[in-house]
């Protein structure tokens, strides 16, 4: 099959097998920031935003994502001008091995879009589909709080 994919605002034309999942398509086309931790829909390291909704890209057929807006962690900021969530993760020690981080950052991004001033239990709920084996989640939750505060203060 062939399709046009809008990834982080750029359109690319890609041919793919009808049963390919979005995760594979993205990784094969350079989006290696989308991580594969399980391929079973259990770890959240492969999440992307699909038309603004957080999805496990290993559980979505590539075909169904054609034409939709796909956002990965590279789409919300970069090393030189990181998104406030990315800076907050760095500032609060929420990153260890980093394998869960792209997914965590996107889960936080999705939450803060809808809810700029989340309670702690709402943060915990928002990232409960993203596994992290390194941090015990404490600093990740802290990072989301800090990001929310900074984003509110800076509009």
């Amino acid at each position, binding site marked *: 099959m062939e399709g046009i994919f809008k990834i982080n605002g750029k359109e690319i034309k890609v041919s793919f097998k009808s049963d390919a999942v979005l995760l594979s398509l993205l990784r094969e086309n350079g989006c290696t920031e989308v991580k*594969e931790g399980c391929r079973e829909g259990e770890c959240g390291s492969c999440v992307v935003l699909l038309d603004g909704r957080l999805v496990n890209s290993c559980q979505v057929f590539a075909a169904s994502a054609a034409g939709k807006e796909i956002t990965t962690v590279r789409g919300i900021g970069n090393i030189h001008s990181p998104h406030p969530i990315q800076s907050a993760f760095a500032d609060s020690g929420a990153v*260890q*091995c980093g*394998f869960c981080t792209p997914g965590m950052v996107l889960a936080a991004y999705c939450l803060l879009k809808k809810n700029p001033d989340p309670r702690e239990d709402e943060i915990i*709920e928002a990232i409960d589909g993203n596994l992290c084996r*390194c941090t*015990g989640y*404490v*600093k990740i939750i802290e990072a989301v709080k800090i990001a929310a505060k900074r984003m509110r203060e800076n509009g």
Partner: protein
Amino acid sequence: MKEKVDRSINRIDAPEKTGGYAEYIADMKFEGMLYAKTLRSEKPRAVIKSIDIPLLPEGCYVVDKNDIPGKNRVKMLLDDQPFFAEDIVNYIGEPILLVVGPDREQVAQVLSNIRVLYEEMEPVFTIVDAVKCDKASIYGEDNCFSGYEIIRGDPDRAFREAAEAIEGEYRTGLQEHIYLEPQGVIGVYENERVTVYGSMQCPYYIKTALVQGFGWDEERIRVVQTTTGGAFGGKEEYTSIIAGHAAFAAVKTGRPVRLIFDRAEDIICTTKRHPSIIKIKTALDKNRKITAMEVEITLDGGAYAGLSPVVLQRAMFAATGVYNIPNIKVKGRVFATNNVPSGAMRGFGGPQAFFAIEMHMQSLAESISRDPLDFKMENMLSKGDLTVTGGVLRYEVKLPQMIDLVEKMSGYRRKYEAFINDRGEVPKGIGLSIFYHGCAFTGSGEKEKIRARVKLKKRKDGKVLILVASVEMGQGSSTTLRKIVARAMDLPVEDVIYENPDTDIVPDSGPTVASRTVMIVGFLLKKAAERLKAGGEKAADFKVTEACEGPAELEVTEEYEEPGYIKWGHEKFEGDAYPTYSWGVNVVEVEVDPVTFVIKVNGIWGVYDIGTIIDERIIRGQMEGGIAQGLGYAAFEVMNTDCGNILQPSLADYIIPNSKEFPEMEIRLIDNPYEYGPFGAKGAGELPFIGAAPALASAVQNALKVPIKRLPVTPEYLLKVAEGEK
């Protein structure tokens, strides 16, 4: 400008990791790269009668034992494990051969058409059966990989003269690391040299394993670590096997070969934490003072020895916990079974031993109507006392202050009393564990096995390069080691460079294990930095990467020297098993659902003595992450096998903690500088894991008023215990 050394700085790797630019092994591509998949044994124990391989499609290869030019044994302690099975398989998942080809689906297709004809042998699945040894032995004559005994004082006499003896038996299960990034390597063959890139903890273990597997000069082997997505011991010895596979395949095909596991494969065939059975017997005199302890530790090593002998030693050296016992007998054995090999995992035998001793002390105190904490504190080690192996504790043991502090933070004593008398609808409990971790390699390992070397180079532009084999795997060493050097040389951290280790460039500073990176490697770096600051030697021109290319001005090499006070007799396990110890006290509060027996954790408090803190935020991250892993191990990380088959081969079945499981943790760090650690730092990474399980289990014991003797403390187990009590 001199900063306080413990001031937290942002991790150097954070921007690339939060941005999605860090390159892990699965993100790397090489021109002409082939994909490999492993054909694995489906039988727990069998003779391979024949392997029927259909005609291979163009460009596809099979790589097996015949493609190993050197010795088909993975270099380890006993060298018993083959890279590829020869004529016998000993566990489900044992590698037999690789299929390699340009298309992943085609490789999988070819693999599924290979038929292996097995002649099954009678397998052994439990420690008890391995000890009995009434079937053909798997290893040696009696299935025993290693057995040791430690005797201090006159335990037999103490037991003969005892007023009473109290016994308990404790069992723990398998645990899987679940580093988020599965195992993976890429082998490349170029100009008569083989290079392995991959996610790993120990570049030089792999190099040594490849030298033996190829039978080549070491100049022809190169190992390069790539950004590593967690390891926890799982990428310590195991990775040598797959590094071999990818390297043999690269040489055979002449193309780069990528071997990366999916999650199920990773769970099924990689090493696990050793299951254990630990029996403890304590002798009391008529005043109910402890006069002796006898501990018998038995571990399930799985099909091959791997690091089992040393895991066993570490468990034995923790057998009597933080207690000062005058007469000691510790017997330890690790047995072969037809289960997946057990191996290194955070704590390395310590968690099993500390679970047993802490539960034993609590039950013992309760059985003689003493308050457990009072009883523990009366028997606690302090400076000048002897360890299990008769080493003198030379440095201050700050446990009393630490217990005081955790008591203030958690209200442990008041709650313990309240909960023990509480007969409310929902049982509540609080538990406290006291523990240590011996820092660095066991026994004379640092001096005799490792002999770490580190190097620093100073370039003309003033930047200093750290050259060590110690890896960044999430624990923060790339930042911590830079801070140590920067501080020692009065440089800004930005002027100190650390790259992922490449064995062509870095000296062998030893494996990234045993909580040794900061204390041992960091201390050598500090010494090197001081010498470099004072002058150093002229260095040859060299090249590291684009970013840090340039002529070197000065260089300094530093080699491990054992502190003079360490005395160790390996034959009898006598003396200082470790250079020093890190200490911890952990309190956990729980409630237990009266119907489902599901445990809910309501509070977590920890106080740790890891010497001086080099970076507080990194250390807190280590403590929090270690506690979460330890509590998962304690409460719900169940891994069962049925006839050698792992019954939880996915993240849907094997549950690790998510964000909802545990409440916030309150952590305090006590300063207690160690003279042979950089700025006083000791080991940190493994310590927090060790205390979590016994703290949770004692809390459950406090809540349900029944002795807890198993890990994990599952609802099924609690139901059985509760019913047994009725």
